[in-house]
C-alpha cells in the first residue's frame, strides 16, 4: 500500500513537471516565432517529398506483396504518428549523445531532485515534429474511404493503444543508445544507427527479405511501431500478437532503456572545469 502510494506520488510529480517544462518550451517558442515556422515548413516539405516518392513507386507497381496502394499509405501514415510523437516530446535524447554528456552539462540534472531521465526527456519540445504528425493523420484520413475495414470501438481503441506504446519503442531505443554516452562520452552515431532502422517501418515488413524482417521484428523491433498494429487494423487478424506483443515489446524496450540509463549514471565522469 505504501509502495503504491509512493508510486502514485512519483507519477503525479512527473506529470506536473512535464506540464511545467512544456509551458516553458511554449513560452520560448513565442520568443522565437520565425524559428518555429521555418522548422514546421521544413518538415512538411521533407514529408511531401517522401510522399511524392511513394506515389512514383506505386504508379508503376499497383500492389506490393499483396498490399494495395491505400493500405501501404495507411501503414506509412500510421508509422509517422508514433515517430512524430516521440520526435515531438523526447527529442532531447539526441543532445545527450552529442553534447550534454561529453561537455559535462549533465551535471545540472544530477543536482536536481527529480529523475534525471524524466528531466532530460521533458525538457525540450521539438515542434518540427508537428509536420510528421499532421502528415500522418492526413495520410490515414485520405485513404480511409478506399480501404475496406470493419471499424469498431474496440479496434479504434486498440489502434490508439498501439500508437501510444509504439511511441515508447522509439523513445526506448533512443534511451538505450543515448545511455552509451555515459560510458563512451558521445553516442550520437550509435543513436543515428539505431534510429535509421525506423526507416524500414514505413513499408509493409513483408516486402523485406527474412533477414531484415527478423531484424526489425526481434532485434530492433521497429516493425511493431507500425506494420504489426496496422495489420491488425486492416485485416482484424491476431490482435493478441499484433497489438499485445507491440505493448510487450514497448514495455521491454523502454524498461531496459530506463535500467541502462540508471546504470550509466554511475559511470558518468562529467568534464573538467
Amino acid at each position: 500500500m505504501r509502495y503504491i502510494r509512493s508510486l502514485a506520488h512519483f507519477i503525479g510529480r512527473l506529470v506536473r513537471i512535464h506540464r511545467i517544462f512544456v509551458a516553458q518550451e511554449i513560452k520560448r517558442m513565442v520568443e522565437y516565432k520565425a524559428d518555429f515556422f521555418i522548422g514546421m515548413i521544413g518538415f512538411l516539405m521533407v514529408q511531401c517529398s517522401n510522399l511524392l516518392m511513394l506515389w512514383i513507386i506505386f504508379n508503376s507497381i499497383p500492389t506490393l506483396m499483396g498490399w494495395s496502394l491505400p493500405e501501404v499509405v495507411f501503414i506509412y501514415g500510421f508509422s509517422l504518428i508514433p515517430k512524430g510523437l516521440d520526435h515531438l516530446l523526447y527529442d532531447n535524447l539526441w543532445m545527450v549523445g552529442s553534447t550534454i554528456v561529453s561537455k559535462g552539462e549533465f551535471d545540472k540534472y544530477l543536482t536536481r531532485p527529480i529523475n534525471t531521465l524524466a528531466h532530460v526527456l521533458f525538457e525540450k519540445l521539438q515542434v518540427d515534429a508537428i509536420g510528421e504528425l499532421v502528415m500522418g493523420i492526413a495520410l490515414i484520413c485520405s485513404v480511409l474511404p478506399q480501404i475496406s475495414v470493419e471499424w469498431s470501438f474496440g479496434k479504434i481503441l486498440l489502434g490508439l493503444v498501439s500508437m501510444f506504446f509504439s511511441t515508447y519503442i522509439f523513445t526506448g531505443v533512443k534511451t538505450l543508445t543515448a545511455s552509451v554516452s555515459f560510458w563512451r562520452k558521445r553516442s550520437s552515431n550509435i543513436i543515428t544507427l539505431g534510429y535509421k532502422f525506423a526507416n524500414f517501418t514505413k513499408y509493409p515488413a513483408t516486402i523485406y527479405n527474412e533477414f531484415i524482417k527478423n531484424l526489425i521484428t526481434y532485434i530492433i523491433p521497429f516493425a511493431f511501431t507500425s506494420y504489426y498494429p496496422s495489420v491488425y487494423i486492416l485485416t482484424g487478424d491476431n490482435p493478441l500478437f499484433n497489438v499485445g506483443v507491440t505493448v510487450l515489446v514497448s514495455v521491454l524496450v523502454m524498461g531496459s532503456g530506463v535500467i541502462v540509463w540508471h546504470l550509466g549514471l554511475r559511470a558518468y565522469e562529467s568534464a573538467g572545469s
Partner: protein
Amino acid sequence: MIEVANLRKEFKKTIKEPGLKGSLKSLFHPQSEQVVAVDNISFHVPKGEILGFIGPNGAGKSTVIKMLTGILTPTSGKCTINGQNPVVNRKNYVKEIGVVFGQRTQLWWDLPLRETYGVLKEIYEVDDKSYRERMAFLNETLDLDSFISRPVRTLSLGQRMRADIAASLLHSPKVLFLDEPTIGLDVVVKDNIRRAIEQINSQEQTTVILTTHDLADIEQLADRIVMIDKGKNVFDGSVRTLKSRYGQMRELNFVTESPHPAETLRYREQFHFAEDDVSVECEGTAVKVRFNSAVVPIADMLSYTLQTVQVSDISVKDADIEEIIRRLYMQGVE
C-alpha cells in the same frame, strides 16, 4: 553536518600515442590506465561554517566537489550531509544542497529570469508562501528586481552570477556549494557577491563550501581552509594557522633615490638566500623585496638595506595569503 570519509575516485584513462597512427593503434589495441584523482580525503564541516576549498589546477578539487554534490559516484569512501548519502538517495540528498558552478548556468537561457524561479519552485516543491518570502529575501540580498524581467541571455556576467546564486538558494538548502563564484567579475561586483555570501551565511547559518582561485575570496570569507594537492588532503586549518605555519615570507617595501637599487642591493650574496627565499622587484623608485624571515631576521634585512641605499618611506608587512599559496603550490607541501 558534512562528513567526508576516505573519499576516493579513480578514473580510467585511455593511453593514446600522438598522431593519426597513435589514434588508429588505440582503436585496435585500446590501452588504459587507472588514474587516482582523489586519494583518501576526509574532513568534517560543522553547520554554519564557510570552508575554503583550494588547490592548484588538476589537484582533484572539482572531482571532490562533484562527489559532494552527487554528480560523481565515489570509487570508495562516502560523504554524507545531515546523514543523507547521495549514492543511496540522490534526490533527498540534493534537496539539502544548493550548487553554483561559476562557469555554467542553470538558468533558462532564452526566458525572462523570473521564469527560472517559477520552474525551480516546482522542481524543489516550494510552497507559495515560502516562495514569496524567499524571493523577497533573495531580492533584498542579491538585488534581483532590476533585471528579473529580462531574458537571461541579456544579463551581464555579474547579474547572471547573482541570479544563479539566488536560484541555488530558492529551496533554502542547508549547504551551499560555490565553485568559482567570482570568476571573471570586476572588483566591485566581486565585493557585492562576497557580501551577499557573508550575509546569507550569517542570517541563515548556511554552510558554505567555496572553491576559488581568487584568494581574496578565501581571505575575506573562509573560516577554514582545506587544501588538496595530487588528490590528497595537504592542509586543514584556519587561515591564521596557514599563515603562521607557512607564512614566514615578509614583504619589505621602500622608496629610494639611489640609482640601480636592484644591482646595489645584493641580498642573495649577503645572506646566502636560497633561490625562492628572496625576490626583488623595482618599479621606478619603489622597491619591493619578498624574503623568508625564517632565514634572515627582519632586523638584519632592515639594517643592511638602510646601510646600502638612501631610503625614504620603508615598511614591512606580512605576506598575503596569495604569496603563501603560491609557494605551496610550487613546492608542494612536505
